[in-house]
């Protein structure tokens, strides 16, 4: 979709206004959004503050400065259950607890689809569920007008900030970062499987990608 302002660049940000039952959307490219003052949403402190206000303890306090700050706007998102940061996940390709999947759901959905070639499980389901209430946390939908689930709030927020749900149009840089994360995951998987040929392939791909994005 083209930017509503310059009509030349691909729109990567959608601003959504909801008035009663009416929803209005404005699609902007990164440059026009920045010139309109929306660039600050990309700042990690700004995002962390919004998320912090929405989800309480789920996000590290802005004053807790650390190396993650330099790694992008999402690195401060923290799982409320195990305190794994998104930055940790990017580094280790590893989650800390089952709740990380819902905490980082919006951020990792595309990567999982890329990694796995699919996005929805088919196959065996647990034969026994002793405590159905736990399970419902993962998949809750606010169909009856109750409180929206964490996942829905996150989706909504992401949609408002970046307008790219469910199939985001990514900037080249974002795309490269995502591929890097996928290759890192695949590399680690290959090493765990002791599949050294595959590991060498992903190591080379990562090196090329880093070179291209000028990180090395």
């Amino acid at each position, binding site marked *: 979709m083209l930017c509503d302002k310059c009509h030349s660049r691909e729109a990567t940000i959608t601003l959504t206004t909801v008035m009663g039952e009416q929803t209005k959307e404005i699609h902007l490219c990164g440059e026009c959004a920045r010139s309109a003052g929306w660039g600050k949403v990309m700042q990690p402190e700004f995002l962390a503050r919004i998320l912090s206000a929405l989800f309480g303890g789920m996000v590290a306090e802005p004053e807790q400065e650390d190396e993650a700050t330099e790694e992008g706007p999402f690195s401060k998102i923290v799982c409320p*259950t*195990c*305190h*794994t940061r998104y930055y940790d996940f990017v580094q280790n*390709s*590893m*989650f*800390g*607890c*089952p709740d990380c*999947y*819902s905490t980082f759901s919006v951020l*990792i959905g595309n*990567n*999982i689809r890329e*990694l*796995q*070639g*699919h*996005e*929805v*499980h*088919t*196959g*065996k*389901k*647990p*034969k*026994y*569920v*002793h*405590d159905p209430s*736990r*399970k419902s946390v*993962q*998949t809750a939908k606010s169909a009856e007008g109750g409180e929206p689930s964490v996942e829905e709030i996150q989706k909504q927020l992401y949609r408002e900030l970046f307008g790219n749900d469910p199939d985001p149009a990514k900037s080249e840089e974002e795309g490269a970062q995502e591929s890097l994360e996928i290759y890192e*995951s*695949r590399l*680690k*998987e290959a*090493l*765990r*499987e*002791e*599949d*050294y*040929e*595959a590991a060498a392939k992903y190591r080379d791909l990562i090196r090329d990608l880093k070179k291209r994005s000028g990180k090395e």
Partner: protein
Amino acid sequence: MEKWYRIEGKDQDVVVASRVRLSRNIDGRKFPCTLSKEEADQLGKEIEGSLAGLTTITNHKYRTCHLDKMTDTERMTWAERSIINKSLANSERPVSLLVSDDDSISIILNGYDHLRFQVTAPGNNLNAAWSMADKLDDFLNEKYDYAFDERYGYLTSFPTNVGTALKAYMILHLPYLSSHRKFQGLVSQMGRFGLSVKGAIGFEEESCGSLFVVYNQTTLGQTEQETLEKITKISSQLIAQERSLRQQNHELHGDEDRDRAYKTYGILKYARKLSLETAVDYLSVLRTAAFEGEIALENPNRIYEMMITCLPHHMRLRAGADADDSTIETLRAEYVRKNLPELIAGSE
């Protein structure tokens, strides 16, 4: 009870074994990597305590060991047996391991996931391995709620395992196909099916013995049965190609092959020092010759077991931590001499 690798299986001339691994996590608990040592210890003990009915369910007795109480060499022997992977063998986390009396079933507690069970069946029989893993899965699920999500399936610490959390492996002996020019092309095409092929045994990063594993790379969006069928189907093509190359070779060079088989047997039977590569590669030649009828051995299934037991950490465990390479080579030759299957009387 007879070890699984001494039992004959389907398509054993090419297929050594079929293996299935399932990862499961207990709902409401942090994954092992984020548990403190105390929390992990406690969870490990809790799960161990709940496995009382395991023997009845699987009809096997189990021995339990704790990786953090083992030496590095002991842990690495489990990695050489493909019971744990090398990165787990190199860690000193409180991981518990239960292994059945026939070595076919192993359960890892607090590895990368809370539970990982692995079932191995001799020969081409992924379904047998799966049905035991499935049974174990239900047995444990009866005691614990699993971390499961309608969209992502069984939740695992690595997103590369999420979904069915099933990894299935077919271990193939492909001496002829792997030295054929088209092999690399075949291997690189596996990715199209979401599968991968890697060397099955080796040291450092070098694989040896012409043993390969076909396994699934992806775990989301396909059922367990679809995964097993895909691996079985692709493997059956590799099996057919390996057999056809063996047949062609036999027709052209039958006499030379027979000569090579006996010379190889002679070296293995009488050598005083054996390097890893020599031992494993010669055992590989002998395995093929035995299944192709070029040499008649008492129990050719034992050869795979010998290939594993020849690996460096198994040898170091026998030789002691201070043994040098030369001592290990001497010990390896001694081990091979003592354990090499006998020639069937009158067949020479």
